[in-house]
């Protein structure tokens, strides 16, 4: 057997084993083994006004889904399945963020500058900056800063809205009633959230835990993890939207 074929056979065996056992260590190995594919696909979506880090984040979540859903019984190459899944996630990411498409290009560009400026000002001032401080530093109005901040958010309303537009389900009220009838109690729901959290990539899970369970500020988390506060904010928004989306799918 040629070395490349042997490698593929070994990977396939891991998929079979993962499907049988659900072993997280195996899952992470499979994600790692295909990291370059996620990076490659994220790069194809650059130059559309979204930071590469964010696209990579979406692509990696897509890879996680692909690994978890890949059915070894189907006569399909994993790379084909993963490409379709990740591209779907990336396209959904752009579609869900129609607000960022509608706002002026200037606001999108300003959003990209905000991350660096917040970091620099936080260091210089010794505290997270206010909107007027940011506006003065960037030479723009307060309103422009606020609008640029909005560009980066992935909010609950946006993900629900996208889902509503997508689905041909019952009207909102009926769905809400249905959900109430299902009657997850608080303890069950907490277990569910914990399970979903544990399925997130390590960094995202850590950031959510630090913010919402250990109540660290975004700046503290940024220092802890070694990324910018703005990046923490974006990752939190994205991860919460992902959690929300998975909760709705349960």
């Amino acid at each position: 057997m040629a070395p490349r074929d042997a490698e593929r056979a070994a990977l396939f065996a891991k998929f079979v084993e993962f499907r049988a056992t659900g072993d997280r260590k195996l899952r992470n190995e499979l994600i790692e083994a295909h990291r370059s594919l996620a990076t490659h696909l994220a790069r194809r979506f650059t130059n559309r006004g979204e930071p590469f880090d964010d696209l990579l984040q979406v692509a990696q979540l897509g890879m996680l889904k692909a690994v978890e859903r890949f059915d070894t019984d189907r006569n399909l190459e994993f790379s084909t399945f993963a490409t379709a899944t990740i591209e779907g996630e990336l396209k959904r990411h752009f579609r869900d963020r129609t607000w960022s498409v509608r706002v002026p290009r200037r606001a999108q560009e300003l959003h990209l500058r905000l991350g660096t400026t917040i970091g620099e000002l936080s260091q210089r001032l010794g505290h997270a900056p206010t909107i007027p401080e940011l506006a003065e530093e960037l030479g723009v109005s307060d309103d422009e800063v606020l609008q640029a901040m909005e560009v980066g958010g992935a909010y609950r309303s946006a993900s629900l809205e996208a889902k509503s537009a997508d689905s041909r389900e019952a009207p909102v009220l009926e769905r809400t009633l249905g959900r109430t009838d299902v009657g997850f109690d608080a303890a069950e729901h907490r277990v569910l959230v914990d399970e979903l959290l544990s399925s997130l990539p390590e960094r995202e899970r850590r950031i959510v835990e630090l913010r919402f369970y250990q109540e660290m500020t975004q700046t503290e988390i940024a220092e802890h993890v070694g990324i910018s506060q703005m990046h923490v904010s974006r990752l939190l928004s994205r991860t919460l939207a992902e959690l929300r989306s998975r909760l709705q799918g349960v």
Partner: protein
Amino acid sequence: MEQHSTLTSEVVRLTVPRSLEYVRLVRLTAAGFASRLGYDVEEIDDVRRAVDELASIIVETGTGGDLEVGFRVAGGVLIVEGSAPAEIPPLVDELAHQILAVVVSVHDTGLESDRAWFRCEKPLPAGA
């Protein structure tokens, strides 16, 4: 809890169609109001996240009518209240509770007089 507290003169009221699409307008207003009060970017992010969670929950609790939201300051805290017609109480899941417990000091929801309502509070920044 009293749904409609006595509003001071420093109130901003916003009425939008009951649609998730319009929650972004509520977020922007929340951010603008919070900015005027001197909150920093992180705290504004908190206010916006809280308002987004709560307004979305109220919108999803029923159909028809408008979503009415008020922003005001009283007793050293920012108070955001909102309501829309409904027949059932809002459903706030554990994830939302967890998020809200961290980003605002007080949050509550309920059903009163055929309207689902929310309220949240956040202390004003020091020196405001």
